[in-house]
């Protein structure tokens, strides 16, 4: 008689999985953020790296601590807190005091993410709310834009002898000359640490699309609608898609799975909404920049967009069914 095998594992089909898991996705996002980090270090100096490291560490500690306090399974291994830390740091000026940055991390991880149930349950992007709370709470340090020798002469001239100066969007709002589109593309400007180089962010975006981590709908719809809105308002569309947080926001923040719609159609609506709101705030609002507010507002609409753009099964005439 043959050897018998008993007590085998019984589980439901399928018995194989795509190797891509949450951890590998989050790790890919961190890899995609690296070019922008390198540009930040080049333009702003070592403090960019220190501030990013502090934010990452704070986010991971807050995540681990909250899970422990709430008696929930540990989730720091999924790298999502690392992503939030890097993105939040990228949204801060390099001169931001460390303790304030840590408050931003607390808001992002503890309040926005964990108190709503952790990864997957938060209705808004944690890093965006963290940034907005810091922006509203610490308006002066959050708009303290360091000027360094590596930046465009337009920025340096506008700042004069001061160590800080207005960002390109600030210069635009004040009706002053703005840096060339090439300097904006390369990132030789001031602003939040990670948002300055469109080139570095685009490299990261292409990596994410190549790795199938994100699909192009949201970034393309958002940037395209920013450009169209700029044209309608007789402004330079290229300047607007390179300026401020447009690139960082469209590629890395608006594409956050949890807080953006699921279907292609929904993603396009979401991206257009983000782009249009960004430009309305930039041009008509009292703030020079509007990307984070625009994305937050669209985050809130996401469940509704998901409902409007749900998929339907093939081969059924829906109009006939409704009647």
């Amino acid at each position, binding site marked *: *008689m*043959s*050897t*018998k*095998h*008993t*007590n*085998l*594992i*019984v*589980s*439901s*089909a*399928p*018995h*194989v*999985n*795509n190797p*891509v*898991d*949450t951890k*590998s*996705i989050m790790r890919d996002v961190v890899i995609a953020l690296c070019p922008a980090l390198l540009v930040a270090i080049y333009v702003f100096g070592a403090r960019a790296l220190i501030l990013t490291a502090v934010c990452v560490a704070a986010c991971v500690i807050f995540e681990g601590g909250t899970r422990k306090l709430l008696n929930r399974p540990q*989730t720091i291994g*999924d790298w999502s807190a690392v992503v939030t830390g890097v993105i939040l740091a990228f949204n801060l000026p390099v001169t931001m005091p460390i303790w304030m940055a840590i408050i931003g991390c607390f808001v992002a991880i503890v309040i926005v993410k964990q108190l709503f149930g*952790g*990864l*997957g*349950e938060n209705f808004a992007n944690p890093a965006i709310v963290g940034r907005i709370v810091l922006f509203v709470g610490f308006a002066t340090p959050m708009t303290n834009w360091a000027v360094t020798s590596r930046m465009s002469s337009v920025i340096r001239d506008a700042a004069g002898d001061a160590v800080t100066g207005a960002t390109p969007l600030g210069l635009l709002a004040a009706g002053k000359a703005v840096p060339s589109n090439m300097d904006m593309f390369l990132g030789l400007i001031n602003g939040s640490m990670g948002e300055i180089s469109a080139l570095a962010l685009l490299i990261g975006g292409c990596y994410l699309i190549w790795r199938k981590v994100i699909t192009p709908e949201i970034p393309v719809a958002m940037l395209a609608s920013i450009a169209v809105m700029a044209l309608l308002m007789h402004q330079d569309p290229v300047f607007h898609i390179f300026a401020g947080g447009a690139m960082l926001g469209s590629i890395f923040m608006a594409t956050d*799975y*949890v807080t*953006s719609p*699921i*279907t292609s159609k929904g993603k396009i609506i979401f991206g257009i909404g983000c782009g249009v709101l960004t430009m309305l705030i930039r041009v008509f609002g009292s703030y020079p920049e509007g990307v984070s507010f625009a994305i937050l507002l669209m985050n809130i609409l996401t469940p509704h967009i998901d409902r409007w753009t*749900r*998929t*339907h*099964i*093939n*081969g*059924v005439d829906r109009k006939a069914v409704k009647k």
Partner: protein
Amino acid sequence: MSSGKHLNGIHVNHCKNTAGQAIIPMSLPEKVYIPMSQHIGAPCQPVVAVGDHVKVGQKIGDSEAFVCAPIHSSVSGDVTAINKAMSQMGRVDTIIEIVPDGKQEVAETVVPPVITDKASFIKAVRESGVVGLGGATFPMSVKFNVKPPAKVDTFIVNGAECEPYITVDHQNMLTHAQEIVDGVKAVLKWLEIERAFIGIETNKPDAIKLFNDLLKDEKNISVAELRQVYPQGAERVIIYETTGRHLIAGKLPADVGCIVSNVTSVLKMQQFLATGMPLVTKAMTVDGNAIAKPQNVEVPIGTPLCDVIEFCGGTKAEIRKMILGGPMMGRAIPKDEYGVMKGNSAILCFDETAGTQLPETACISCGRCVRGCPMNLMPTKLAKAWERQDIDTLREYDVTTCMECGCCSYSCPARKQLSFEIKLAKTWVMGEDRKAAEKAKAEAEAAKAKAEAEAAAKEGGDK
């Protein structure tokens, strides 16, 4: 042909390790265990008794039911027991035990059937015992017995073999191409169907070429090349990919003018038409990282699974998971003492590394399940609705359309068992729907009876 659009699906690692390996006939086991329920539909009743001597191809189980296929002995020998016991399906079944005498004498009843018309053709197909051999096990004769007003114009031969690992359909196509074509011709002739497609995934270029050469003078039979996207072999997918027609839940392929049969089913049917030998053996791929010598074997129905593994050189690692069928839709079984059944196309054995379930994490709404679903469902939405027992949302999002192909679970980065949850939800909704229908029917009958009674009373009063 299709409109150029395709249904969603996923890319799975093919793992066709046994591709190109000839199907080796397996030696006789010490005993065969033949269950009476090897198909969708009514179980067969034994037509032999303990102590009877049976021969190869002799009918040992049959039923009067319409949805049923008879079962034949795969060996010659003596019936030693007829027991109620657990079959590999996890259900208690009547199982006939036969001890082979080693002579493999063929039964006198094994003679080519005489076919004169459609009815005799369908009867012959029924007597062949052939069912959907891809794994669905729907009796072939029932499929062929199309009830008006449904009118079939397309016969689709399913040679997609989209499940990873399995290569027996591929091998059968390479070695029995002419018989398969003859079988298709018989179906077209007797069922008066206009055209046939032989659907083959493009990962089998040799089979595609072979059939293209064989069919170059045929006007109404052609090869449909299918993309290498799982699940091309799912009935609703292959119908759409070859004809552009959508088969919705609750409808039969005949309702959209199609009959779909697995390529090995067509082969076995043709072999019965030519020789009278019914379905008594089943080609299986034996593979997985715990199997010493992965190979394709032709196994007598009822052979214990453990004997098949032994025949393939046994194991090279401790088996922790054993799957009957492919890894996408196959069933994991708790032990391997069951007899091989008609629907088994593979035994896959995996060790600890591949056998254990990965821990589930939170849904991050990435949408991979939605993009992967061939039926355009929203698996994440359905699974969440199931978790909170929300039957309205399950109905609104068409849970009953799910065909359990497993694309959603496969692509989920949170390792959620979406397919499993949706299956549970589907069963629940269908059960509730049935209950509601029964209640409505009972109420309608009660109302009718009441109205009749009132009418009778009124009539009585008038008098």
